[in-house]
């Protein structure tokens, strides 16, 4: 018994090493949305182009991506081409133009192409705040029930789509 006790430090070391090794693969800044599993918060925002007043009831049936973007956000420009690609593949994307200028945002989409079925214009960032957005770009998956199923912070690219987002679209 007392001999086995001698192995305790070794066991403790192995356990700690395992824990730390697992930690290497985790992203300490990853922060799941506090809205997971609940419906979109209520909003009354205008459409970027038509200026028509929109509320959650006018959102399409899921699944769709809700992409938070702005013209001041450099990374949004980077991911834009891939969003257009996704849109061409038939993935529904709603834009949330976050704390931006209407004319600048319209120009941006005219120049770079518009992957969004609808774009909510949120100049004060009110829906952003209610949704828990803390920077752009962020992309939310809204599922068939209209609930927030996933949040991705940062650029969406082929890898992010393949590994995480596409699973909400089932088998293609």
């Amino acid at each position, binding site marked *: 018994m007392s001999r086995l006790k001698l192995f305790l430090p070794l066991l403790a070391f192995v356990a700690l090493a395992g824990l730390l090794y697992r930690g290497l693969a985790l992203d300490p*800044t990853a922060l*799941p949305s*506090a809205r997971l599993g609940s419906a979109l918060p209520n909003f009354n925002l205008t459409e970027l182009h038509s200026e028509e007043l929109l509320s959650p009831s006018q959102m399409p049936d899921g699944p769709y991506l809700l992409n938070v973007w702005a013209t001041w956000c450099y990374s949004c420009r980077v991911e834009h081409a891939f969003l257009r690609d996704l849109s061409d593949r038939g993935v529904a994307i709603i834009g949330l133009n976050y*704390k931006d200028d209407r004319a600048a945002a319209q120009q941006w989409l005219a120049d770079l192409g518009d992957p969004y079925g609808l774009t909510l214009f949120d100049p004060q960032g009110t829906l952003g705040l209610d949704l*828990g957005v*803390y*920077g752009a770009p962020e992309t939310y998956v809204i599922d068939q029930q209209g609930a927030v199923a996933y949040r991705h912070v940062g650029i969406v690219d082929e890898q992010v789509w393949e590994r995480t987002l596409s699973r909400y679209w089932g088998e293609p």
Partner: protein
Amino acid sequence: MLWRGWSRGIRLLLGTCVVVLLGLPETHAVIETYQFSSAELEQRYRMLSQELRCPKCQNQNIADSNAPIARDLRAELARQLERGANDEEILAFMVERYGEFVRYRPEVNDQTLVLWIGPWLLLLLGAGIVLRSVRRSGEGPQGDANAITAARGALRKRLHEQETE
């Protein structure tokens, strides 16, 4: 003579530096200020903005951070304080949107329990180990002292023998 000219030149240069530096605009980051209707609100604003964590720059509170989201949250905090919301309502509002993460003192629940009691458990464990090892070696020093006295005695005896030879 030459030296006097030098020293005057240097003095002039230093003086110019001081004047220029004093004249420079302040360059440190300015965080906006809010006017509150009462000192009590201002006090609560200060307390809450230090307790709320910035979701973007994760090791700063919103009072310290210059991130746009921290500015937005400060504005929201000031707005809600002026509207008459109490601390619990404001914290609940933030947690609903940004999760328990935004609080530096999160509520005790099954997810945060380990944060709250973990350090105390570790402290207890450490204290237990120290206590045990102290108690165990209780007889040790006395035994060592005896051994040293004995060894000293033996040495002295041998020295004495050598000297008398």
